[in-house]
């Protein structure tokens, strides 16, 4: 029987300890490592099957080595904005601090069992309801190229950056460069803000 290795990356010790108790109840859990900061990466016990981490550590997702490709990432976020950042960066699922705590266990179970990224779609839907209540923008105002509009449209549809790289035939790094340029042109600092603006521009 294949045992599952899990890493919990959180800056609060008491949260880590509570999460450790939770993940130990998942089926077939073997190794559980507790990391306190990014300096603990990549750990001493090989590549984990799942990382459960605080949203503030999501930049880790941008520079993962190739052998970490099968690791699942679940992010604990305080709000939709934090969640969106992590999900666009490639996290598989997100748990918001205002969700019912009972939902976390099945979310982890499901994430270990499948590769579906349903959470990003849900977060994007929540952003859409926010965008509906705000005035529209003109797309020409920002001088976006056709490629940038295509990337923004995919982000708006809930595709994370690695998925966009695959869909457009570009590398992940190229997509990240495009995304940074999009942020600059739109005058935003995050993926969720960019998506919100894209919705208001009706891209």
């Amino acid at each position, binding site marked *: *029987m294949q045992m599952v290795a899990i890493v919990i990356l959180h800056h*609060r010790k*008491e*949260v880590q*300890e*509570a999460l450790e*108790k*939770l993940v130990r*109840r998942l*089926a*077939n859990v073997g190794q559980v490592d507790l990391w306190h900061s990014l300096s603990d990466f990549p750990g001493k016990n090989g590549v984990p099957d799942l990382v459960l981490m605080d949203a503030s550590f999501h930049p880790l997702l941008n520079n993962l080595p190739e052998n970490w490709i099968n690791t699942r990432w679940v992010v*604990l976020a*305080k709000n939709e904005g934090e969640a969106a950042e992590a999900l666009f960066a490639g996290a598989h699922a997100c748990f918001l*601090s*205002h*969700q*019912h*705590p*009972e939902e*976390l*266990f099945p979310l982890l179970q499901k994430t270990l069992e499948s590769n579906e990224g349903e959470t990003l779609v849900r977060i994007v839907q929540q952003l859409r309801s926010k965008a509906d209540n705000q005035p529209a923008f003109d797309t020409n105002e920002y001088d976006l190229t056709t490629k940038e509009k295509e990337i923004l449209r995919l982000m708006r549809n809930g595709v994370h950056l690695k998925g966009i790289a695959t869909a457009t035939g570009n590398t992940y790094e190229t997509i990240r460069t495009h995304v940074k340029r999009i942020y600059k042109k739109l005058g935003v600092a995050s993926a969720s803000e960019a998506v919100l603006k894209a919705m208001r521009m009706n891209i």
Partner: protein
Amino acid sequence: MATTLSNPDTTLPNHNDFLDQCRQRISSGAFNNVIADLVNALPNISDAFSSAQANLLVADAYLQQKQFSPALPYMKEAEVHLERCRASNPAWFGLKIDCLMTKAWIIYFNLHHSQNLDDCLNELNELLLEYGNNRQRMAFFSVVSLGMLRRYQWYNLPLEAISHSQYSYELARQENNLQAMISVLGELGMIHMFRNELKLAIQAFSKAVELCGEKEIGFKAISTNYIAVCYRMLNKVSECEHWTIQTLALARAHGVKVYEEHANSNLAWIQIKRGNLLTAEELARNSYDYLDKVQHPFIWLPVMPLLYVCLKNGDWRQAGKYAFPLYTPPRKRLPDSMEAHLLPMVNAWLADDGENCLQQLKMLIQEAEITGHL
């Protein structure tokens, strides 16, 4: 014995003698030796029906020691062999029933895969109508009861749960099966307890204590323990203490660590009532650590005294850490009036909002005192 068992006579088509010996040794508690002998013998057992029996015995031996993960592959292997020799005779159906029953205990109740429990129970129900014996029927009722307790998260159980237990009790009585009668009375008491019918619960547990006499010490410890919990919920300190002391003695004598730790959490509650917070905290923390380790659904028993101590110390970080496992499966749901503060408290803790966490904790403790959980 080991030499004979590790080389079962392959000329016997069903290895019946060997398997019967193993079955008897399991009932006498020689689990590890039987597992070793069965595992050694498995490659030499040629017919699928005997292989299914042998694998199921290994799974049962692990199950009785509460080792669920190691039991799982043997249970699955038993299912495979059983399908290979599918037949329409009572022996095959009898083994199929035992296999499904073992599956229910291992997978659904202990490894937390609850999604297909209903399918398993429906299949069992159909087979039992035609092929089951009363021993299997009583085991089935017990599985159904546990499924119901879990589905309702040990909270506000329906009236049907009581009639179900009463029927099971009647069957156990007809069969003159003392252990089953005591076990069902324990179930009934628990159902009353979680319908907040505490006096009826005490009656059922007391009857179980009476039937236990001086023989069934393990069951007796369970019943005295829940009588103590009922008195705790009725806020009767001296009665709770009386039954807790009895439970501690019985649980220690019989090595039933779970109920020893239940009793320690009741002692922690008593110490809270007497204003001895340091002693209360120590007792409750030890109990909490153990009940968490064995994934016991009634972790609220030590958590509530611990939360009281955290409130007194203004330690919201620690409070959140203790409260979070109340939402980890398998969990006993707390009354709605408590959940109304517990949920925002845990959410505030996760969001690093100490002020709100403490405020909700204060209201949670007030509610716990009203509902008899503290």
